[in-house]
């Protein structure tokens, strides 16, 4: 237990806030230098501006301090009578102006460079959903959803009792990271299916909003292999703090292997809709899908949150109307947080989650929904 924790647990009563025990060594004070040319230039400009501010501060606060120490009545200071000077006013209008110009031009130049998304070798479409990211590699057709890792999700439940410091990369780990090759210009196309999100990796110094109905662009060239983490940076609802971004930068060869593996896995998934699934298989898969896509609103116990997110446990739609149930998941409900999942979930996932919702908790309908049934509804 470090000093601050000790002091604070005394202040607040250790019973309520049990200190976490493990050392959290990182007293990070400053911006990251990052791993791209742009991020290093951003860092340098940040430092330059900060030092300019620092020295202006020294001058202004210094003059104030001298005044406060020397020109006080208790030291017998008598007030001077001067109260204006056109020369001084012009001087301290012009000097800051010149300093600002000297800062503004390099900044504008850098901005031009940052906004130049031409000649990208790889293009990835990033779609924000409440509350996960969807990635589509437009060149190779790879497409997947990336959401908060189950360990973090479990620990980040109110009253879970799990110490976040025991979870690897708490809140900064996902199930499916984005994979990029190093040294190649990657262009991101950002959009959203529901509300505004923002995609941000501090180590790349890029951040842009993902806005429904808009496509925004940005780019990066990652120099070093490694895993880089970021978060959604625009308030997007209840789980805004729980939709991280993880990027793995790999060598070109490893990236190639990853692409091949992803394409093979996609083929297996596509064929899964054609066969008959057993109840157990559907329930097992359904529980996983439910945890990733549904539980944030409808809650793990299916009871929702009164007035905001309807309960599924005991809901007439879930107990009776199979087609309506599948339809609302496929197409969403306009004007509410219930989004259309048709593009995010394949037939097997949909069939599994519908089966799960109809048989979990107190919903014991015994219904088994096959992927083929979802497929036929989807075609309509």
């Amino acid at each position, binding site marked *: 237990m470090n000093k601050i924790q000790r002091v604070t647990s005394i202040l607040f009563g250790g019973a309520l806030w049990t200190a976490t025990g493990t050392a959290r060594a990182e007293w990070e004070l400053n911006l990251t230098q990052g791993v791209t040319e742009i991020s290093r230039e951003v860092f340098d400009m940040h430092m330059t501006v900060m030092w300019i501010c620092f020295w202006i501060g020294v001058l202004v606060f210094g003059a104030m301090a001298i005044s406060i120490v020397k020109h006080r009545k208790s030291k017998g200071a008598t007030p001077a009578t001067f109260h204006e000077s056109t020369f001084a006013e012009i001087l301290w209008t012009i000097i*800051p102006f010149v300093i600002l110009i000297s800062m503004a031009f390099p900044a504008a130049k850098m901005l031009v460079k940052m906004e130049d998304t031409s000649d990208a070798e790889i293009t990835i479409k990033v779609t924000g959903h409440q509350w996960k990211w969807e990635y589509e590699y437009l060149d190779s057709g790879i497409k997947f959803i990336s959401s908060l890792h189950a360990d973090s999700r479990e620990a980040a439940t109110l009253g879970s009792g799990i110490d976040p410091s025991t979870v690897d990369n708490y809140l900064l780990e996902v199930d499916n990271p984005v994979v990029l090759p190093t040294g190649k210009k990657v262009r991101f196309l950002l959009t959203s299916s529901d509300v505004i999100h923002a995609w941000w990796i501090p180590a790349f110094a890029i951040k842009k909003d993902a806005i429904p109905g808009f496509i925004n662009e940005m780019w990066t060239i990652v120099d070093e292999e490694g895993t880089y983490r970021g978060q959604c940076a625009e308030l997007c609802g209840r789980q805004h703090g729980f939709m991280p971004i993880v990027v793995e930068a790999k060598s070109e060869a490893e990236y190639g292997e990853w692409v091949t593996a992803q394409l093979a896995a996609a083929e297996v998934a596509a064929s899964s809709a054609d066969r008959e699934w057993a109840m157990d298989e559907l329930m097992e898969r359904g529980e996983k899908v439910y945890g990733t896509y549904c539980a944030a609103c409808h809650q793990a116990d299916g009871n929702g949150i009164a007035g905001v997110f309807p309960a599924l446990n005991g809901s007439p739609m879930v107990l009776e109307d199979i087609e309506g149930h599948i339809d609302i998941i496929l197409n969403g409900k306009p004007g509410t947080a219930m989004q259309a999942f048709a593009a995010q979930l394949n037939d097997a996932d949909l069939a599994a989650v519908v089966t799960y919702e109809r048989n979990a908790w107190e919903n014991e309908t015994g219904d088994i929904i096959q992927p083929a049934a979802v497929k036929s509804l989807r075609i309509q």
Partner: protein
Amino acid sequence: MNAHATDAHHDSDHDHHGPAPGLMRWVTTTNHKDIGSLYLWFSLIMFFIGGLMALVIRSELFQPGLQLVDPHFFNQMTTLHALVMIFGVVMPAFVGLANWMLPMMIGAPDMALPRMNNWSFWILPFGFTMMLSTLLMDGGGPAAGWTLYPPLSLQTGDAFPYLIFSIHLLGVSSIMGAINIVATIMNLRAPGMTFMKMPLFVWTWFITAYLLIAVMPVLAGAVTMLLTDKFFGTSFFDAAGGGDPVMFQHIFWFFGHPEVYILILPSFGLVSEIIPTFSRKRLFGYSSMVYATASIAFLSFIVWAHHMFTVGMPLAGEIFFMFTTMLIAVPTGVKVFNWVSTMWRGSMTFETPMLFALGFVVMFTIGGFSGLMLAMTPIDFQYHDTYFVVAHFHYVLVPGAIYGIIAGVYYWLPKWTGNMYSESLGKTHFWLSTIFVNVLFFPMHFVGLAGMPRRIPDYAVQFADFNQIATIGAFGFGFSQILLLVLVIKCIKGGEKATDQVWEGAQGLEWTVASPPPYHTFSPQPVIK
């Protein structure tokens, strides 16, 4: 400045009467001093309500993991904390100070439109009761942030129409208050009180009032469009219907940026009154202070999109808004340099109002520096929507706007009550507030730069230490404000009698009337020579 002050009970025929007896005095009053007190008390109550919300936020953020509140409730707290502090604390406090002091500073008998004055105050408690009652509704209160960005804000539950209507009410109240202030300054200045003789608090409020009249209708328009999008089938901000969610942000910030200056300009005025008094030296560069204020007000209309650098604006737009935003540093710098020059070779004493004014100058300037950093688009991409921004705007609003208000309250409290407040209690309040406000907000710069986004109820473990420190600061700062309440109540009940002049270096008409001033001052008006 010379003035012929008069006592209240002169022989004119219609205003002998004092306040009405009992509680109805406060309901029916049209007296600027009564209404000023109502505004100030309302503001203080809301300060504690908004503060409690902040403490809920800071308690949840004391350590990683979710311990106390659901994320949805956390979002309601951040949203309402902002709305309460902006519309319920800072703006009413400024209007309260204006009500009390503007007529006395320009030699007017009262505000120009006294009945409207009563109405513009009494809308507020009802507006806020409606807004806060949404916390008890199905789906809870508004949780999309005070900026109400659609489409997220359109997901609000039953609270939504109540929220929109309460914002309309607050807007109506502000616009009426502003019209009243403009009308008073334009029409009721005492003979000889030319524009360039007006005290700076009057000047800054004059300019602020125009900003309010210009932008509050813009906010009303924006939230009305949200309302029709939600309930009447329009698609102003719905891309699927041909609308544009970013358009809301442009409209909102066209209101929002001038609003930021509405929250700070009157504090500039207060500090410009207080520093000369306790430096025993005239304000340095009076006319350049007036021009700087007007320049800031003008620039505030052409910088709005710097709140939205990451929405994907065209390059030319980003560069334009970066340049205009950086320009604001020039007139703001002029003001700071003038304050320091006023102190220079003065004969300073450090009573509580002066301490708060000095705290204002230093910490507002720190907030200004981070503002300059945020103005630079290429590096703003790293700062945008992180705790660095939270640190920035809290520095300009808490030790900025709020310190200005507190300084003003201490400055005029002896005038209002006729009693001196306890200087030792006031100084304790200053030092505790100043230590804790920095413990609270300074670490936010660090977690922000290290990558912590704002508006999150839970965070990665590497941000834990600074968040703990900030939470300690929050509780310290919050509890320190109880001293202010105690001090004000003690001062009203009694204490050493204040002179008319109160402060040795005080200049201006308000110091020529008795402490406390009679119920009706300045009829007939004094003549300024």
